[in-house]
């Protein structure tokens, strides 16, 4: 619960009903076939299903192809600076817990330049959704190595191939104290993507979703295996996670994973033999930072009378 609500806001009778189109702004200018398009559609569907008021919903992003996301949403948007979507989101939520906040980040954005903020945002566990659109490359700046680029993958900055093994955003997140929701999904399986987003949205706390995203412009072959061969994918299923019943026919590899089991979650994240999608971990009992602000709101008059008492302490 936030610390107060505006009665004036409540007073305005509101019987609007929102359709998909109500959330659509400018025509998305990503490359044809770019995975960001699917994420956009899934998110718009989520907002429609949840009937979120466009004026009370905020998309915050950094800089990158994926960070263009807010421009295509007809909500409030904040297209900030590279790597810094999370501090901005934190500020918004601390001041306006009544707003629904979604942060959209690329892999360079979140895992490289914004890594410090990412780690701390996980720990703050503020009630919001963070989407990592992970295409394993820097798209906007034209194909430089990212922290998640597969080892050996050539890029413009590492033409000899990426030297280091990639960073694993899931293990990192699961390793941070106070992580409360960690999931992975892929943008080319819309129903799974949608179901995952929905779980993330309903989780009370910082919901981190890594979305594997195709970048046909620079890494056209990247997820080819996983797309063409369903056996490469393993579904983590659970009633408290994503059940993905509709996918039973396609993805046969299903593991019943209880998202309260962090040890299992970490093992699943660590093991790279499969592309494992679903809710890895969730725990709503973790403290949320915005709750530190659960304080009575004072009127200006009251504030000043408290301040006046403070001055007594300094009076001579």
């Amino acid at each position, binding site marked *: 619960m936030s*610390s107060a609500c*505006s009665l004036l*806001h409540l007073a305005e009778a509101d019987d609007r009903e929102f359709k998909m189109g109500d959330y659509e*702004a*400018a025509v998305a200018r990503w490359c044809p076939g770019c995975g960001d398009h699917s994420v956009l559609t899934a998110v718009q569907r989520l907002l429609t299903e949840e009937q979120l*008021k*466009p*004026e*009370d919903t*905020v*998309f*915050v992003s950094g*800089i990158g192809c994926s960070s263009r996301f*807010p*421009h295509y*949403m*007809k*909500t*409030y*948007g*904040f*297209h*900030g*600076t590279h790597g*810094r979507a*999370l*501090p*901005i*989101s*934190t*500020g*918004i*939520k*601390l*001041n*306006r817990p*009544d*707003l629904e906040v979604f942060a959209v980040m690329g892999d360079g954005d979140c895992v490289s330049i914004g890594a*410090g*903020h990412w*780690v*701390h945002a996980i720990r703050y566990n503020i009630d919001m959704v963070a989407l990592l659109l992970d295409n394993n490359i820097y798209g906007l700046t034209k194909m430089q190595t990212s922290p998640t680029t597969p080892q050996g993958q050539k890029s413009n900055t590492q033409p000899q191939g990426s030297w280091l093994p990639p960073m694993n955003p899931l293990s990192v997140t699961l390793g941070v104290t106070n992580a409360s929701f960690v999931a992975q999904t892929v943008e080319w399986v819309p129903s799974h993507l949608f179901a995952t987003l929905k779980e993330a949205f309903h989780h009370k706390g910082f919901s981190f979703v890594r979305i594997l995203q195709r970048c046909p412009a620079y890494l056209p072959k990247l997820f080819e295996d996983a797309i063409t061969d369903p056996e490469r994918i393993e579904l983590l299923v659970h009633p408290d996670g994503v059940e993905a019943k509709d996918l039973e026919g396609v993805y046969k590899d299903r593991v019943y994973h209880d998202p309260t089991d962090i040890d299992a979650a970490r093992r699943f994240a660590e093991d790279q033999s499969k592309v494992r999608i679903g809710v890895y971990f969730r725990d709503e009992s973790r403290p949320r930072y915005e709750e*530190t*602000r659960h*304080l*009575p*709101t*004072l009127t*200006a*008059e009251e*504030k*000043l009378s*408290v*301040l*006046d008492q*403070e*001055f007594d302490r*300094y*009076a*001579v």
Partner: protein
Amino acid sequence: METKLPIVGADASGGKGSPKGRQITQAKMSTVEIVSDPGEGAQKCAQIFGAISAKMGNGVWTVEIIPAEIQPPPRLPAGASGNRIRIGSVPVTNWGDRSKVVVALNDQVLLARHRLDALEDDAIVLIENMWKDHTDEDIRQQWVDAMEEVSDRNYRIIEIPMEEECLKIVDNPRRGKNMWVLGLLCYLYDRDLELAAAQIADTFRKKAQEITDRNVELLNAGFSWAAENLGFGFEVRPIGDDRPHVVMNGNEALAMGAVASGMDLAAMYPITPATSVSHHLGEEFLKFGGLLHQAEDEIAAAGVAIGASWSGKCAFTITSGPGLALKTEFIGLAIMTEIPLVVVDVQRGGPSTGLPTKVEQSDLLAALYGQPGDAPRVVIAPATIEECFYSMITARKIAEAFRTVVMVLSDANLATGVSPFPRPELDPSWVAAPPDLSPIPEGLRPYDWDPQTGLSRRFIPGSPGGMHTLTGLAHDEGSKVAYDSEINQRASAMRSRKLAVFQSTLKPPSVNGPEEGDMLVVGWGSTKGAIEEAVEEAREEGLSVSNLHLTFLSPLEPGLKEIFSRFKKVVTIEINYSDEPDDPYITPENRRLGQLAWLLRAHILVDVDCWTRVLGEPLRPGAILNAIREKMPEGGVS
């Protein structure tokens, strides 16, 4: 500044139990220091002394003497810790030059002050004498060496058996000697003992009554000892200002000002000397429903403040030099996107880690221009502790009204100086009301700049119909990314215009002293008190000099060119680095100037000279006076 007034007869001195024939020196200002090893309570003694003096109606400026090391061993010059207190029969605006009286709890801390040239040539040194005849031979030798070293001055050294006297009352004089010293000072300056006792009771209000009683006993003992053994004292009359006052340091004043302005979210990362603002805020905000957010770094702190500001009431972030460097990109974003934001920089010595605890005014140009790209913003500099309080109220209002970043430049001098000012009469109009979330009228755009003023209505999340994506990319009135060649030119002009508009509402600054003359000294920020004191002293010497102090640095206050034209010479005085004109290789062409001097030259095409120092301490009025004498134009002495 002091006149000797030998007064015979106890009644004239006014002090209780003062011996006949006590010599009283009447002083307009008097500066006293108490120095000891850390942990001996010199600061508590000084704080109480300062508080009683303020209560008795004197002007007071107290500043801490901070040890150079964190945990120094005892009896080391680098460990000297304590306070300087300057009291006056007029308001005291700065820490002064050198001290008249010093109470030293050992010979080494005295040396520290001596070496820093902190004591007047004929200072009265009241020193604990237990070291002189100490059982440890090394200590005895150090005493001898120290006395030898200070003998080049004319100090009047009075050895006092503090330890011995305190032992009559307490077992461990290390805890308690400070209160005995307080008693002694109360005698010297004729302080009201009852006030002192009450102040002690207040200081120890959370401890057992015994502690207060014991300390009051020590106080009285120190007083009586002085009455019997010291045949002199000082008289510093009250100012005669009956208004109620409060006494605090500049950081406390900033914190209280932030609360009074209605800003209720501050984001910061600890950094000296700004941190203590957050210590006060952390506590204050608990009572006011605000939030102090200690972020993971200064970048995040700026981001959090921006996110908060954008979505509601103006928020602020507070830092010092190195932190300001990190906030650079975000400040640029706030300016580009026209998000109101208050950034407080409590300046310290730089660059890099620099002098973390020491004062400098070296961030002026960084505050004004420290952004890649064109990033106009408002920069203001409070000059007094009182202004630290009130500047926050104005800063918040201007930030919101002009949709801009307002930088508030304080410094370590204001942050650590403690001084009384008239108690503010609080006004609810200062407090920011929640932002306007009413629906956005059809057709209005998020940057519908008034073509004259560049101002536009803020669209805040929650306002129906105002949905848009704010972007740090160049954008048009609709917040759409600028693809059209002309938009960036227009948008830049609009952001810049706001400054011009604000400047047009500023009044020309007033000149302190005659409106024309040989020399005009120009300063900004915390140096005001010291500069004015020096300039007034110079005029008493017959020099034709006035001064002008700038509060708004961006936009600059109007009318400067005209004012400057009435003086033969204009000199800025600042605490930042400039080349000395006669140093090797330095020519008028390559000389690097004080930061305000750069700024003034660039803006008003006047040949402004400067005198600046980066000694890690506030400017001393005496040093400024010397500079004025040196910089006087030919034939300046009238």
